[in-house]
C-alpha cells in the first residue's frame, strides 16, 4: 500500500516537474491534445464542477432565458416554447397603462428616501462608534445594533403593524405628543415614512460594519500628523477619516444605485394594503401581484425585465461616474 502511494507520488512529481519546465512544449500541442490533457489533468475539478454548473444553469440562467415569455403570449397549455410571439405587446401595455407612472414614481421616491436616510447614517454611526474608546461599551453597542439584521422580515413587519396600529405603542407615543390615535400604517401620508424609517432602524447597525472595517485601515500616523498640526477631532474626521474611507463609500454607493429599482419587495408585500397601494406599490410588488396572484405571467415578466434592465443600466452609469470622479470602481 505504502509503495503504491509512493509510486503515485513519484508519477505526480514528474508530472508537476513536466508542467513546470514544459510551458513552451504544451503550447505546441494540437488543440485536441491540449483539451484531452486539460480534462484528464483536472478530472476531479470537472467532477466537482458538475453540481455547481448545474445549479447556476438551472436556477440562474434558465430563468434568464425564460424571460422570453415577456415577448410571448404565455399560456400554460402551450408552455414557453410553443406560445405565440407577440413582440412588445406587453411592454406597450405596461408603458401606456395607468399603473406605469404610479409604480415608477413610488419606486423612485421610496428608493430615493431610503438612500437619503439609509446611506449616510451607517457611515456617521461608524465614525461616531469609532470614537468610543471604552472597549466593552463599544462591543455592547455593536451587539445591540446588529440585532435587527437577524430578525426575520415577517417578525419585523408584524411588529411594525402592531406598533403603528390604533392603540399600538408607537401610536400611543405619538398621541401623547399631540398626534392622532389612528392606524398610521394604513394612512397614505405615513406609509413611506414608516417604511423608510423602519428600514433605517433595521439596517444602520449592520451596514456600518463595512465602514468600521474601512476605518481600521486608516493609517494612524495620519491622525498623529493632523493632531500635531493642531487639528481637533472634528477636523481630523473631516480631513483624515472621510478621505480614508471614501473608496469604500463610493463602492457601496455604486452597489446601492445598482439596486435603485429593487425596493425591498418582501417588506412592501408584507406591509401594504389596498388603502396604501397608491403610495406603496412598487415595481416588484406589482410584478408579484400581477404575475402570481393574477397569473398574468407574460405581462409581469415584461415588467420584471424592465426593472432588471434599468438596474443594470443604473449600475453601469454609477460605476462610470465613480471611476471618473473618485477613481474607485467595481469593474
Amino acid at each position, binding site marked *: 500500500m505504502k509503495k503504491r502511494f509512493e509510486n503515485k507520488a513519484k508519477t*505526480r512529481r514528474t508530472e508537476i516537474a513536466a508542467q513546470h519546465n514544459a510551458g513552451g512544449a504544451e503550447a505546441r500541442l494540437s488543440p485536441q491534445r491540449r483539451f484531452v490533457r486539460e480534462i484528464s*489533468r483536472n478530472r476531479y475539478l470537472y467532477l466537482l464542477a458538475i453540481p455547481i454548473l448545474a445549479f447556476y444553469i438551472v436556477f440562474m440562467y434558465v430563468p434568464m432565458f425564460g424571460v422570453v415569455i415577456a415577448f410571448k403570449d404565455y399560456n400554460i397549455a402551450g408552455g414557453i416554447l410553443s406560445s405565440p410571439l407577440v413582440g412588445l405587446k406587453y411592454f406597450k401595455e405596461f408603458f401606456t397603462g395607468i399603473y406605469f407612472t404610479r409604480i415608477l414614481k413610488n419606486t423612485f421616491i421610496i428608493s430615493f428616501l431610503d438612500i437619503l436616510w439609509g446611506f449616510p447614517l451607517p457611515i456617521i454611526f461608524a465614525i*461616531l462608534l469609532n470614537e468610543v474608546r471604552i472597549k466593552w461599551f463599544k462591543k455592547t453597542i455593536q*451587539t445591540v445594533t446588529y440585532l435587527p439584521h437577524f430578525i426575520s422580515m415577517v417578525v419585523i*413587519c408584524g411588529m411594525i403593524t*402592531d406598533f403603528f396600529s390604533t392603540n399600538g405603542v408607537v401610536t400611543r407615543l405619538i398621541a401623547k405628543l399631540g398626534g392622532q390615535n389612528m392606524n398610521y400604517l394604513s394612512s397614505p401620508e405615513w406609509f413611506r415614512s414608516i417604511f423608510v424609517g423602519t428600514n433605517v432602524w433595521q439596517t444602520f447597525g449592520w451596514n456600518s460594519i463595512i465602514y468600521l472595517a474601512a476605518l481600521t485601515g486608516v493609517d494612524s500616523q495620519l491622525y498623529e500628523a493632523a493632531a500635531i498640526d493642531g487639528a481637533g477631532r472634528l477636523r481630523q474626521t473631516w480631513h483624515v477619516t472621510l478621505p480614508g474611507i471614501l473608496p469604500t463609500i463610493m463602492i457601496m454607493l455604486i452597489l446601492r444605485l445598482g439596486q435603485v429599482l429593487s425596493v425591498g419587495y418582501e417588506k412592501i408585500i*408584507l406591509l401594504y394594503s389596498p388603502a396604501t397601494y397608491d403610495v406603496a406599490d412598487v415595481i416588484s410588488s406589482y410584478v408579484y401581484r400581477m404575475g402570481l396572484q393574477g397569473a398574468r405571467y407574460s405581462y409581469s*415578466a415584461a415588467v420584471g425585465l424592465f426593472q432588471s434592465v434599468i438596474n443594470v443600466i443604473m449600475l453601469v452609469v454609477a460605476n462610470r461616474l465613480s471611476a471618473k470622479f473618485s477613481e474607485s470602481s467595481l469593474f
Partner: protein
Amino acid sequence: MLNKKGLKKSKGSMVFDCINTLFMLFLILITFYPLYYVLMCSLSESNALIGSRGIMLLPKGFSLASYKAVFSNPNILTGYRTTLLVVVLGTALSVILTSIGAFLITRKNFALGKPMAYMMTFTMFFSGGMIPTYLLVYKYLHMGDTFWALILPTAISTYNLLIMKANFQALPDSIEEAAKIDGANDIMILFRIVLPLSMPIIAVMILFYGVTYWNSWFNAMLYMRTKSKFPLQLILREILLINDTSSMSAGGNGASDTYLIGESIKYASIVVATLPILCVYPFIQRYFVKGVMIGAVKG
C-alpha cells in the same frame, strides 16, 4: 484626564465624548426596546393588554397562557419542524456547494475557473426575475409544494461564495503544492487541506446560511400550498399579518375570548420564532462581523 498617548484632552473633546456616549445609549435604547417590549407583552395577561399598551417596563400581570396556546397550535409545531429541517439540510447543502464553487474558481491551471467566476458574478447584477423563476420551479421542475422548493432555488448565494473565494485566495499556495507532490488529488486537497484550514469562514457561512434559511418565507409563499408543510415564518405571517389566530383558540368561549388571546398570542409567537436566533446570536456575532469584513476588505 490623559489619554493613551499622554496628551491632555481638550474641553471640547470631553464634551464630544459625553454627547457621543449619550447618543450611543439612545441608539441602544431604540434598537433594543421594541424587542424587549414584545417579550413583556407576551408575558402579560391578555385582558390587561387591550386597554393600555403604552410604554411598558414589566409585564402587565403575568401569564404564560399565550405560550401555552402557541405551543398547542399544530401549525406552529409543524412549522417548527419544517423550518428546522430546512435549516439543517439547507445549510449543509449550501455550505458544501459554496465551498466547492469557491474552490473551483480559485484554481489556477483550471480552464473553467475564470469562465465560471464570470458566470457567477453576472448573476449578482442580472437575473431572470420572479416570474420566470417561479414558472421554472413550479411548472417545469414540478417542485411546487415539495420540501426541495424551499432549498434548491436558493442553494448558493453568490455573495457568500465570493466571500469564501477571497478567503481561499489568502491561503498559501505552497501547502497545496506540497500536498500535490505527495500525491493528493484535487478532491483530497479541498476536503483535507483547504476546508480544514478555513474553519472560521465555514463557521461564518454556516451562520449566514442558517439565519437566512431560518428567516426565509418568500419562497415558501410562492411554492407551498399545504399548510402542514409551511415553514414557521409563513405560519407566523398568517398569525401576525393576516390576523389568523383562529386555529389557536379552539376551545375558547366565543369571539371575544378569541380576540383576547389573539393579541398576546401574536407577541408570544414572535418570541417563539425569534428566540432561538437571539440565544445563539451573541456568541456567534463576532464571526458574522469577521465574515463581512473579509468580504469587505478583499472582495
